[in-house]
C-alpha cells in the first residue's frame, strides 16, 4: 500500500521538503551554532557576519531561533504523535477486542473529547496546567489519541472474524500475541499514514498554542511565538514574521504532501466513502 505509491508527485515533493528541512537544521547547527542569548543593545539588527539573518526585538540571533524553533516543533510533534498513536492503538484494540463495557467506556470517552471543537480542549488544559513542554505535549495527546483509537477499532472489528484470527484463537493465542503479531501488521500501514497526517495537525495546533502564548515557556523561541513576537514590528521588519512563517508552512506542507502521497486512496476519498 505504501510501496506501490512511491512514484507519485506529492510523495516526492514531501520527501524532498522534509529532507531540505533536516539538512537546514543539521547544517545550520554545525555552521552557525545555536546561540539564544539576549543582547538588548543589539535589537532588530540587519544581517551581519555575526548574525546571518540579523537579530529580533530581544537582540537574539534570528537564524539560531529559526533552527531551535523548527527543531522544537518537530520534536514535540513527533513525541505527541507517537504517544497518541500508541495510546490510541492500544485503546482501540482493547475496545474492539473486549467489546461490551470496555468498548462503551473507551468510545464514550472518545465522543466526549470530540465534543470540544478542535483547539479548545488543548487550550483549556494548558490554561489550567500552565505552560511548559510536558503540559503542552499532554494537552496535544489528550485531544489527538481519539482518531487513532477509532481507526484501529474499526480495523480490528473488521478483522476479528477473519479465518486467520479465528485460527490463532483456536491455538489459544493470548490477546497480546494476537495484537502484536496478527493485528499490528494489518493495521500498521493505515496507522502510519494517519500518523503522518497527524504530524501536520499537531504542528498546526502546537504553533497556534505558542502563537497565543500558551505553549512552551514564552521566553523560549518557537515558530508560533516568533510570529507573535514579530507582529509589533510588521511595518519595519516583516522578515521577523516571514522567516518563521516560511519554516512553519514548509514543515506542515511536507507532512501533508507525504500523507497525501502515501495513500493509495486519499483521505478525502476515504472520508467520502465512509459516509
Amino acid at each position: 500500500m505504501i510501496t506501490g505509491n512511491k512514484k507519485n508527485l506529492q510523495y516526492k515533493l514531501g520527501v524532498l521538503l522534509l529532507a531540505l528541512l533536516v539538512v537546514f537544521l543539521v547544517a545550520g547547527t554545525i555552521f552557525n551554532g545555536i546561540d539564544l542569548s539576549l543582547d538588548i543593545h543589539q535589537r532588530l539588527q540587519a544581517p551581519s557576519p555575526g548574525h546571518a539573518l540579523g537579530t529580533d526585538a530581544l537582540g537574539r540571533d534570528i537564524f539560531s531561533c529559526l533552527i531551535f524553533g523548527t527543531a522544537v516543533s518537530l520534536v514535540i510533534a513527533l513525541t505527541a504523535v507517537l504517544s497518541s498513536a500508541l495510546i490510541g492503538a492500544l485503546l482501540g484494540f482493547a475496545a474492539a477486542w473486549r467489546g461490551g463495557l470496555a468498548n462503551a467506556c473507551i468510545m464514550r470517552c472518545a465522543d466526549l473529547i470530540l465534543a470540544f471543537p478542535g483547539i479548545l480542549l488543548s487550550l483549556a488544559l494548558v490554561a489550567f496546567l500552565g505552560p511548559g513542554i510536558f503540559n503542552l505535549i499532554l494537552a496535544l495527546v489528550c485531544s489527538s489519541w481519539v482518531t487513532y483509537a477509532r481507526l484501529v477499532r474499526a480495523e480490528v472489528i473488521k478483522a476479528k472474524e477473519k479465518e486467520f484470527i479465528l485460527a490463532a484463537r483456536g491455538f489459544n493465542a493470548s490477546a497480546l500475541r494476537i495484537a502484536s503479531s496478527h493485528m499490528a501488521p494489518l493495521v500498521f500501514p493505515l496507522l502510519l499514514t494517519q500518523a503522518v497526517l497527524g504530524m501536520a495537525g499537531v504542528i498546526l495546533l502546537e504553533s497556534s498554542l505558542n502563537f497565543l502564548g500558551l505553549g512552551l515557556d514564552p521566553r523560549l523561541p518557537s515558530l508560533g511565538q516568533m510570529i507573535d513576537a514579530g507582529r509589533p514590528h510588521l511595518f519595519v521588519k516583516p522578515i521577523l514574521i516571514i522567516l518563521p512563517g516560511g519554516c512553519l508552512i514548509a514543515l506542515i506542507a511536507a507532512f501533508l504532501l507525504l500523507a497525501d502521497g502515501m495513500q493509495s486512496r486519499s483521505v478525502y476519498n476515504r472520508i467520502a466513502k465512509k459516509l
Partner: protein
Amino acid sequence: MKVWLLKKMGAFLIFIWAAASLIFFLVHTIPGDPVVAMLGKMPRLEDIRRLQQAMRLDRPLAEQYIHFIQNLLRLDLGESIIDRRPVISSIRRYFPNTIILASAAMFLAMLIAIPLGMLAALKKKGFWYAGSLVFSTVGLAIPGFLTGILLIILFSIRLRWLPVSGSGKIQFLILPALTLAISLSAFLTRVIQTAVAGELSQPYVLLARAKGLSEFHIFSRHVLRNALIPIITIVGLQLGALLSGTIVIENVFSWPGIGTLLITAIRQRDFPMIQGIALSLAILYLLLNFLVDLSYPMIDPRIGHDYR
C-alpha cells in the same frame, strides 16, 4: 421518526452534561490550588481563604459538583473574579460577534469551495482540477493565524484597502472572515470534488444518460442530491475546525468575540470565566452537530426510516 428524534435529543442532553462535568473536574482536580494560581505569587492567607469561600472551594467536591450543576440549570455560570460581573452576561455580550464572524466565514468558504470542487470533479485532469489541488494543498499548509497576518500585510499595509483590526463596520469583518474561509474552503473543495466525482461514476448516472436525460438534469437532480449527504456531514464536522479557528483568528484581528474573551481570561487566570466560555463553546458545537443530524432525513428520506 419520532423515536429517532428523541434518541438524538437524549444523546445531545447527555453530552452537554458530560462536557460540563469534564470541565468541572478538570478545574477541580488539577494539581495545585486554583486559588493560589489565581492570586499569583505570595498571596496573603486571608485572601486565599476569602476567595476559597467565595468560590465554595472549602466544601466537599460532591457538594461543589451538585451546586455547579444546579447553577448550570439556572444558566448561572458564576462570576468573573476580575470584574465581579456574572460570566453569563459577558458571554452574552461577546457571543453574537463570534456567530457573525463564523457565519460570514462559512458563507465565504462555501462560495469558494462549491463551484471550485464541482468544476474540478467535472473536468478531471484539466485546469480546474490542478488549480483546486494546488489551492487545497497550499490552503491547508498555512496556519490560520499566519494567513491572517499575511492578509494584513497585503491588504492593510501594502494596498491600504482595509483596516487592520477593530469591529462595528463591515470593513472590519472582511479580513478575519476571509482568513477563516481560506483554510476552511481548502478542505471543503477536496471533499466536494471527491464526493461529486464518486457519484458521477455510479451506475445510475449511466442509466440516466442512456435514458437520454440532459447532462444538466443528471447533474442537478441526481448527482448533486446524492453528493449532498457527505458534503453536509463534512461541513458539520468542519464546524469544529471553524469554531477553533475563530478562537485563534479573533485574537489576530482583536475581534471582540468569545475567542478574544477566552484568551484574555486565560491570561488573567479568571477560572470561572474560562470554565464558562469553554462550556458555552462546547454546547454551541454540540447544538450545531445536533442540527446537522436533524437535517439528514430532510435531504435523504432513507435516513431515520428504520425508526419510523
